[in-house]
């Protein structure tokens, strides 16, 4: 019997399993997860879960995964190496043989080599991380967030909701530039002070001070000293692929991500990849990219699962990226890939509601919205269909279109 092994039991891995079964794969499936938990949803960990409004959202029960999907689920088992010539994944629980393999090990939070070994300096990626952070952020506590990216900003927003005091420290003069460009990054950054959070741009933490092994103060590059109960390091994530080094799987020079073709096949036969770790040529933009968002992990998982189930009919994966974030009760949504040409076509950078369009010549390549949930998916479709600026303007501001 053909055996499909999926390494990584988060969103992309689970979707890959579901999709391979839907595509008619009737062989054996082994799903390996490094964490002890059933597959669970990560976005709420910095939002509703952190403030205690929601419990962990596991999509399927263990019985459903084992029974309905017919999966040999192995939790608490981490992959440690790969021997493609033997078709073997090395794990903390011994060798696992595969005929076909899908790698969905995602990403891990980046840290700084200079961070001292003090209790209270933490990152947030897993459910265990979130449980730890829930105990640390309580009403009245002082929270320092290092990095004003999406995770850091969501944590600051949740801290504010809990009744803690959050300060966000960001080294760059404008946050989120790589994801949403300068103008929209600056507009989103303003949500922090408007909602009671201090945001310090162009600033870094020069020194961490502690008492009895626990962080108590940070000294900023400006000389200011902040009292702190916890420092959350939110400076991005890197592909969790060190276990693949030397295996023969082509890894990206810059970040160690997995280099795939348009069907998500890696450089090694019978091995596909999906999720945060994957670099692949996205035909929707004619360039190779790596995406770290929920939608992409889900959709790549679906595609990799279907392709591994039926390699002879493997189909390419192309997408107009989509991600969302919630800060202080405001919904931020982004579709596409940011360009340098951007304009606010509804609302403005200082308001609580806007639509910004990114163009490349006449073509719309991305859109960012704040509290405009009705417009974003229509813009995603327009971008996928290579719509132009005039069409996007008509969609955003239909009342301004003159009737002929």
């Amino acid at each position: 019997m053909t055996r499909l092994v999926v390494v990584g039991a988060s969103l992309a891995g689970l979707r890959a399993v579901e999709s391979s079964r839907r595509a008619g794969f009737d062989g054996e499936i082994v799903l390996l997860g490094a964490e002890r938990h059933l597959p669970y949803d990560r976005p709420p960990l910095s939002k509703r879960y952190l403030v205690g409004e929601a419990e962990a959202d596991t999509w399927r029960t263990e019985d459903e995964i084992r029974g309905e999907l017919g999966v040999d689920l192995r939790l608490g088992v981490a992959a440690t190496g790969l021997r493609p010539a033997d078709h073997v994944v090395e794990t903390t629980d011994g060798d696992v043989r595969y005929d076909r393999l899908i790698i969905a090990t995602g990403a891990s939070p980046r840290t700084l080599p200079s961070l001292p070994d003090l209790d209270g300096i933490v990152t947030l990626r897993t459910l265990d991380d979130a449980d730890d952070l829930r105990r640390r952020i309580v009403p009245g506590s002082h929270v320092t967030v290092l990095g004003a990216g999406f995770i850091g900003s969501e944590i600051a927003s949740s801290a504010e909701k809990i009744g803690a005091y959050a300060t966000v420290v960001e080294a760059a003069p404008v946050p989120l530039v790589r994801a949403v460009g300068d103008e929209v990054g600056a507009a989103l950054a303003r949500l922090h002070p408007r909602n009671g959070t201090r945001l310090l741009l162009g600033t870094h933490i020069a020194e961490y001070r502690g008492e009895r092994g626990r962080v108590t103060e940070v000294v900023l590059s400006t000389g200011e000293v902040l009292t702190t109960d916890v420092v959350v390091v939110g400076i991005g994530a890197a592909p969790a692929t060190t276990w693949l080094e030397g295996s023969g799987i082509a890894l990206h020079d810059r970040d160690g991500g997995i280099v795939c073709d348009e069907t998500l096949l890696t450089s090694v036969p019978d091995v596909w990849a999906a999720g945060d770790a994957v670099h692949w040529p996205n035909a929707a933009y004619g360039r190779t990219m790596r995406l770290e968002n929920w939608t992409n992990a889900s959709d790549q998982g679906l595609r990799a699962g279907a392709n591994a189930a039926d390699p002879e009919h493997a189909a390419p994966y192309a997408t107009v990226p989509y991600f969302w974030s919630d800060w202080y009760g405001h919904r931020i949504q982004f579709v596409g890939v940011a360009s340098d040409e951007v304009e606010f076509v509804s609302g403005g950078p200082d308001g609580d509601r806007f639509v910004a369009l990114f163009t490349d010549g006449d073509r719309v390549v991305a859109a960012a919205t704040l509290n405009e949930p009705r417009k974003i998916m229509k813009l995603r479709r327009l971008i996928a269909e290579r719509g132009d600026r005039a069409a996007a303007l008509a969609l955003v501001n239909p009342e301004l279109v003159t009737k002929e």
Partner: protein
Amino acid sequence: MSDYRIEVDRGRCTGIGICESMRDDRFEVDDDGTLVIHDDVVDEDERAEIESIVLSCPASALKLATVVG
């Protein structure tokens, strides 16, 4: 042969809009983030497609219920 009906758990749905991006003739997020379903009845031909949309919901807010007819 039975029909199916799309159901939304309003307590879970936050209007993220993945469903709308998959089938904008059936799903539409409103200005205040409320999901509107245009025609909630699904026949056997569409069942697999709508099931995949139900599965894709980030908030697990959608369900395809069997209508006993």
